[in-house]
């Protein structure tokens, strides 16, 4: 079975420090893939490389059978790689609806025709549905800068979904969320169409085991282990890696 996304031999160095040292990763179509490992293992850097925000010194990234190593983040997003950031990145002066509309616009399909505003209307329609789904409908007209941290995270998830991703990159989506919000997050992620693949970076192993069907463990910029959640849970290697206690 071929990979939807494959990273091969990815190496990123900051000066003498290797954040990633020849990492390989494969995410299949529709797979829920978790990326775990201690702090500083290179998880976020790997997401940045996949999204196109960081340029690796070495290695290639393939997506849907094509080499996307030379593409920038915008081009990759248009091909279906969408992400949410570790610290929620939203447009602070735009309202919640406008935020989602902006995110939806590049991949929105509108009715044929030329009359003005139809693309925006289609995007607005989609935005309304997503805000509803994420429990943000009441805040639709509030500028995103005025939202609380958890609400901004939810909003960014709505934005990522608005781009109709084939691969969703989630960088610690549960960080800073309340129990209710985490519950809603899990619901939303479980309700994702099967066709959407997810690459999840998360410290909370309960979430990882609940959501993922494959896990890769990263340590010191290298892949330590990969397998199903059960295999990883019982792997002595991983236990040892976590001995310093992260989760």
């Amino acid at each position, binding site marked *: 079975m071929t990979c939807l996304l494959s990273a091969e031999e990815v190496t990123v160095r900051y000066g003498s420090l290797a954040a990633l040292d020849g990492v390989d990763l494969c995410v299949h179509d529709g797979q829920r893939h978790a990326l775990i490992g201690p702090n500083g293992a290179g998880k976020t850097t790997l997401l940045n490389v996949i999204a196109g925000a960081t340029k690796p010194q070495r290695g290639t990234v393939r997506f849907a059978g094509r080499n996307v190593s030379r593409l920038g983040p915008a081009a990759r*997003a248009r091909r279906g790689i969408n992400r949410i950031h570790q610290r929620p990145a939203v447009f602070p002066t735009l309202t919640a609806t406008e935020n989602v509309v902006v995110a939806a616009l590049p991949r929105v399909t509108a009715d044929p025709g030329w009359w003005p505003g139809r693309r925006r209307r289609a995007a607005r329609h989609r935005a309304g549905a997503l805000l509803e789904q994420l429990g943000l409908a009441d805040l639709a007209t509030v500028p995103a800068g005025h939202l609380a941290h958890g609400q901004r995270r939810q909003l960014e998830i709505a934005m990522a979904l608005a781009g109709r991703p084939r691969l969703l990159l989630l960088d610690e989506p549960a960080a800073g969320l309340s129990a209710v919000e985490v519950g809603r997050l899990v619901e939303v992620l479980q309700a994702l169409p099967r066709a959407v693949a997810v690459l999840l970076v998360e410290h909370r192993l309960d979430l990882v085991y609940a959501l993922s069907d494959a896990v890769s463990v990263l340590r010191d910029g290298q892949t330590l282990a990969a397998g199903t959640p059960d295999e990883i849970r019982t792997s002595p290697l991983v236990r040892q890696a976590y001995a310093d206690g992260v989760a």
Partner: protein
Amino acid sequence: MRDRVVRWARGAVAALVLAGLVVAPWVVDDYTTALLARTLALALVGVSVALLTGVAGVPTLGQTAPYAAGAYACAVLGSRISDVGVVQLAVAAGAGAVLAALTVPLVVHARGVIVLMITLAIGELVVTVLGRWRSVTGGTDGLAGIPAVRPFWGLPAFGSDQARYLYALVVVATLVGAVLVLLRTRAGLLLRAARDDETRLRASGHRVPLYLSGAHIAAGAIAGAAGSLLVVAQQYISPADFGFDTSALLLLGVVIGGTASVGGALVGAALVIAVRDWLFGVLPGHAPLVLGVLFVATVYLLPAGVDRVRGRWRPSGPPHRPDAPAAPDQATVAELRR
């Protein structure tokens, strides 16, 4: 609720100002009318500055360049081809857009103070060219004797300050209205998003450089159109009209008016330019002193007004919102410091 009251009040004030501007030529003397006509032209350039600085987040000191291109194209080509105002307006807007398009590769990847300096350089280079290309531009002495303009085919040429002023008012109102409508569409939304957080916009799959180029060219066309109004109002142009002090005053006027608001920028730029012109007439020798004190006073009276601009324009994160997304701001610091 309060928002609605404010919006209503704002609309009422705008309507009052517009009504005042329409009746102005019959109330004030010729001097004030002529001053207002000239000021309208510069205020329109202010709108183009606001479009870039406030709306798109690209602070600029170089809008005098397309402004000059429009004015000279109108004076040289327009008056030879046709003395019809709308033709000259189109020629001028086209020239401004072309010049802006030529400078897009210089501007579109730069941010913050860097883009200020690049646009400053572009403005200075254009002024240098104008001063030296004597066969076309008349050199530093400028182009005098530009024939009077008729607004439309079949109408008489402008013979009074009132007529020139009303023409300028109609053009400015139309163009500002068009800009306001444009900003309510997808284009305006995307530009505001780009100002807020460019990296995030890219991450959503948007072609940000394309949008910024579009905004730059549109702003160039508006500034070019303003150039043709200057020709109408003044019947004379020289490189001095497009110097660094003009662009600096425009930027400051736009800041005073609130960079993100087109109407505010229009009023701010108009007031700064009008006050300057007026001071040189009534306080000979002391105009710079008074103008300087006015600027300082403005900063103190406007503590929040100038705080509104953020995003790329600020090299460090907004101090009052420590939980704001930090990534774009840090990126800007790196960009500035490199």
